[in-house]
């Protein structure tokens, strides 16, 4: 095993082109797997010294670009995330526990793509895109096309996540992340990320993503689009939760049964939407 610590993105990409190379971001997942003898990369490319990956920048239009090496604690405390973008900081604040949040990075977590992790639904609800860089250059991939399957992403071999890009959330929207877990800091049994805007009883912005209920986070843009412009009462929420449930593909695991996930996630969506509407009405 070889250990390299490049100090630029270009050098990191170059180092990643070797067979068996793996990115070492915060180490929270990769080193745990190495300790358990589950992986043994031929080359570890530590991104520690790539300063450009550690920043978060808010552009004038409200777009926030979060470097891949930004740690969970920093994202949880990120004041540049505003309105509906707060869905991401709420999710970051619920990952694991303080020492792990001091280590783990958004790039590392997303590249590992555990379906029960907290970022995937939050990023999907925030309409985030991934900025990727590889030997052939840069590209961006929407979150919905990034998380493909169990622990599988759109990353090509030799490619790394440079940043996560959150578009501006419309002013006045609210973002929230709700997680059900066995104990504090555990991976989710089910989770709900949402961004909601209401104007005088009419829904102006609606994005709801459900985590841990399938190989990738689940979102129903088609139904969301139909609900824009109308109220968001029991019947409308029911339309959305029914549609989401159709797209669930959960499994039984040590955290909960698939059957429970199918039943509880719609209830969590409903509750999260009710609470988000309350929050919106309180801020008016």
């Amino acid at each position: 095993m070889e250990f390299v610590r490049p100090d630029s993105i270009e050098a990191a990409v170059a180092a990643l082109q070797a067979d068996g190379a793996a990115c070492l971001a915060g180490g929270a997942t990769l080193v745990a797997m190495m300790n358990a003898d589950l992986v043994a990369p031929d080359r570890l490319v530590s991104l520690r010294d790539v300063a450009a990956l550690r920043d978060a920048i808010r552009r004038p239009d409200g777009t926030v670009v979060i470097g891949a090496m930004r740690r969970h604690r920093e994202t949880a405390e990120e004041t540049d995330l505003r309105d509906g973008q707060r869905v991401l900081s709420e999710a970051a604040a619920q990952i694991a526990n303080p020492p792990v949040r001091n280590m783990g990075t958004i790039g590392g977590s997303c590249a590992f793509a555990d379906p029960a992790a907290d970022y995937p639904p939050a990023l999907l609800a925030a309409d985030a895109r991934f900025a990727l860089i590889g030997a052939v250059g840069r590209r961006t991939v929407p979150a919905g096309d990034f998380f493909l399957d169990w622990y599988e992403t759109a990353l090509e071999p030799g490619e790394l996540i440079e940043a996560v890009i959150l578009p501006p959330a419309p002013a006045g929207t609210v973002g929230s992340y709700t997680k059900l877990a066995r104990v504090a800091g555990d991976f989710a049994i089910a989770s709900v990320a949402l961004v909601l805007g209401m104007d005088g009883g009419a829904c102006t912005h609606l994005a709801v993503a459900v985590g841990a209920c399938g190989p990738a986070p689940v979102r129903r843009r088609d139904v969301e689009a139909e609900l824009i412009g109308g109220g968001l009462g029991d019947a409308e929420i029911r339309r959305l939760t029914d549609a989401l449930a159709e797209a669930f593909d959960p499994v039984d695991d040590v955290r909960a049964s698939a059957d429970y996930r199918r039943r509880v996630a719609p209830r969590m969506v409903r509750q999260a939407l009710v609470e988000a509407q309350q929050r919106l009405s309180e801020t008016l």
Partner: protein
Amino acid sequence: MTPLDTSATGVGASLPRLDAREKVTGRAQYIADMVRPGMLHAAVHASPHAHARILGYDTAEAQAVPGVACVLTGDDFPDGRMGAFIKDEPAIAKGKVRYPGEPVAVVAAEDEETARRAAALIRVDYEDLPVAATPEEAVAPDAPLIHEGLADYFKVFPAICGGNVASETELSEGDVDAAWADCDVIVEGDFETPAQAHLSIEPVGALAEVDAEGRVTLWSANQSVFRVQANVCEALQLPMSKLRCLTPKVGAGFGNKMEPHVQPLVVQLALRTGRPVKLILNRTEDFETVRARHPFKIRCKTGAKKDGTLVARELTAVLDCGAYGDDSPGVLGYSLLMSRGPYRIPHCRASGKLVYTNRMRFGAFRGFGNPQVTFATESQIDEIAGRLGMDPLDLRLKNRMQPGDRWFGGGDVASNGLAECIEKAREASDWARGRALPAPPGKRRALGVAACAHISGLLATGAIVRLLEDGSVVLNTGAVDIGQGSDTVLTQMCASALKVPADRVATASPDTDGSPYNWGTTASRVTYTTGRSVVAAADKVAEQIKRHASEIFECAVEDLELRDGGRVGIKGVPDKELSFFEVSGRAHWAAGGPIVGTDTWVYNQPSVDPKRAIARGLPFPQIGVYSFGCMIAAVEIDETTGKADVVEVWSAMDVGKAINPGSVEGQIEGGFVQGMGFALTEEMVFDGPRLANPSMMDYKAPTSLDAPFDIHSIIVEAAEPGGPFGAKGIGEIGLVPVPAAIANAVAAAIGTRLRRLPLTPERVLDGMLEGGDED
């Protein structure tokens, strides 16, 4: 040096732990921290099979790895077998494997990485055998036999066994079958509890070193140096004089470190290599191979009259033993002994079966079967209260054992603080008001109660108290302090008995060469049993001090008294006194010296009175004295998900006398949270014979955010005659009522009785949606 507040040191003071400074500075040495010159590191090759015959080994590749000193397989181990009740377990698999993860071969190498790499290169040829993964499978007519030699194994009690049944036990009083006709209300149900992992934060490990004469010194994470010595010597067929067992600091034991784990493996490696060998299991190995709380299936039936008088109880339990007997027959017998609870129920029958399976062995875990049966029995007390429209606390008070009443089976109960526990918990929780408190929006809220009892006692113990030349004291008991604080408590007792400050007493670390026998730190027994010996030994020292002083003063022994600060003087004559320094200095030169007090005893009160009860296959003829407790838990349930959280708890426990109240509270608080994990989140999930969640990622114990901060410890002191300063045990009882109290709160909140632990969000939500059939 920053002084710690040790202004009060005697019995009744919350003296900080004697080893607190060592622990907060990171200097305390645990087994993994130990290094010996020339030490080798060991690793285990574990069985991938649940049940298979071993046809042969190929260790050539492992032997060839540079740095490997020794590879041993079952062929390299003697034929001895160990076991606390049934001698059924070899040091390492021989001939066949009986559970996945069972050690099959071991490697010692210059470093741990090399040892692990080499262990993975060992090839073993197996012939698969049919598997019995559950007690149901194991008692089926065509079940494979897990221990072909069961009938011939040595057993320490009259075991009723056969086939895959390791032990059957029955205990009864009165005429249960006839009594049901006298009952106006009968509740009946099937209860189920899962395997719980001890999850000591320290994984187990051991280090053995052999001297030029071939005598072995063994350090290990343990709860009894004497049980380690006995187990290793039985398994390896060594004379006990050839093995000395010591203990470093122990990173907690909740039963998991009482009986053997890897100690025989390192001893054999040390004997073969002539070098020190250390083996520390990783977390997954610790999960898969050490031991866990028994899964119980319980059928329970309880009947009462209209006025709430309890009349009859019948309980049957089936325990998954796992592949080896370990402490299991004791757990079965003890759980049945606890199945009547702390009540007057004139007609009672409890019976159970312990069944070998091809799973990891199950064994002792804080509560020793009592939390499981108490979950069932205390659930039924609430069910009866519900049926009769009675307050659950009133029903418990009405039926509680009264002073002078005997335990189920006929054992004497000398002290009983149950009524005070119930009343104090009722008052502190503001029960009547608390039950009616509204829930926060989106939640359901309820209080739940459970009462219980537990023993402290069992078997042999001893103490040696010596006066050094300067009058300071050395106490040696052989009891391992596993972190619960027994060294501090025993030191306080010794100091109080001799009227010296605690810092004048040095407490020796257990050593099978120099300490008096101590069965172990288990059964909530050290404060009570070892404390008794400490006080008796200290009293003998006091007598000798007085005898020497009487020779100096030329007065009668009866005219002398001990005075605070380590002095002896003539009663009524304040200036006629000597320091222990003066007395002990003389005693090192004079006939009758030096001053040493020793005491040994075996707990000897019978648990069964044959005139009252019928007992078959019960492994404990003498069990112990009784502590009592009552716990009230306030639970909130999220209506969206069904997740239950304990928000506040009141735990009133009768400890006889709190020698160190801070430590007593620590046991109550820690026991509560461990019990809460058992009730709500913890479950070892098995896929057939194999553990599916052997990691801390997948097996979840409560964190500081899950545990309620508002745990109110209420200390009740119903002095135990014969107990040291009136004390009895507190190590386990704080956990015993937890699942029942939480389950009763959940039932009150959702209107449905849940009879299977853990009370996961899924089960609670199902119950809530079903709703309303609580009766």
